């Protein structure tokens, strides 16, 4: 685990990540992590410029998130299209390969596509900063593709 100079823990767990484009038509590699959403395991990539946890419609559906259960919010611009949806509270766990798992109660955007909309490239989930990663300590070690994470305080 990573530690401060005084010996205190900086992180409590670490997990390998894949470094590749998130979708077939993408060219820029992303840090893609394994996630546990409630009891559903999938992958998502880190986007520190984004907000909330952006779920793919299929994943949101699989989690049983109904629009009426969330709070309405303005449509998001996602890859050139306005996507409506609602915000929900979702439990996200980063499973550790070393150390302990970390579970975060995050704000998640569950898209509601219109009949004529398609989720581009079936994008995986996206881990944004505000409402998701913001109160997490994390560090990336590119030499062995390891994502270190820890709780604050």
């Amino acid at each position, binding site marked *: 685990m990573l530690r401060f100079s005084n010996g205190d823990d900086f992180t409590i767990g670490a997990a390998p990540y894949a470094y590749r484009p998130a979708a077939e038509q993408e060219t820029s590699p992303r840090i893609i992590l394994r996630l546990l959403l409630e009891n559903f395991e999938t992958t998502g990539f880190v986007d520190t410029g984004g907000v909330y946890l952006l779920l793919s419609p299929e994943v949101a559906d699989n989690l049983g998130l109904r629009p009426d259960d969330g709070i309405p919010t*303005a449509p998001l611009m996602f890859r050139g299209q306005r996507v409506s949806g609602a915000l929900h509270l979702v439990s996200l766990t980063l499973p550790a390969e070393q150390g302990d798992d*970390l579970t975060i109660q995050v704000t998640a955007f569950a898209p509601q596509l219109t009949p004529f909309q398609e989720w581009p490239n079936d994008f995986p989930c996206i881990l944004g900063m505000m409402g998701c990663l913001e109160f997490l300590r994390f560090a990336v070690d590119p030499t062995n593709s390891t994502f270190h994470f820890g709780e604050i305080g």
Partner: protein
Amino acid sequence: MIGTLANAPPAPLLIREFFGIRYSDTELTVTSGSLFDLPNDDLGTAEWWPNTNVPVFDRKSDFAESALSFTGTVSAYPERSYERTVANTMIDPEMSRLEVTAQIGDERAFVAAQKQVDWQRRSAEDFIRGVQLALAAGAYLVARNLAALGASRFPNHADLQKYARVLAPPKVSRSKRSSSSDWKASRNWLIHHGESYRGQWVALRDGELVGSANTLKALSAQLHSTTGLLITKVY
């Protein structure tokens, strides 16, 4: 007498910078209601009496009525052509500022406008509307703070409590390492076999394929339980 701003003479310049009008020192604006959904060059209709001075809000100065730099007040021009276009509606200047700034997506102006709202005197519904507008404006931190403030002021209001809960700062907790699937083995499977499943959803456990389908829904239907599985789309 009713007049449209679009019909006013060019004397009140910077019309694009106006977003609200109200009677001077008497009562709130009587307008078409929501000004925010009108084109920039047509601020809707306003009702006034001849020679009434009409204070305006200036978007350039964060909607501070007192900070007008170009004119101070604008006189109405009742001699132009007039017609009643819509029923008159009382508007709430504070909330209208939020509506307008959210509509135009001006986060900075929204943040400034919400600071001028006396939230201690606002209803639970105003808080909810404020949060929704903050989200629309991209002022996510304001949305969170407003929801929290509203929830503390109205502890029995179920919707506000939900807003506050969903928008609250993430709560982080540690737990012992789960006994879920071996990510490395599953990742190796994707590297070595992913090409054959490109575009499909797959379920893996400890590096072995448990199921695959074209959609997540179809895959889920195949699985008795998703516990311990890595489910992902293969790219």
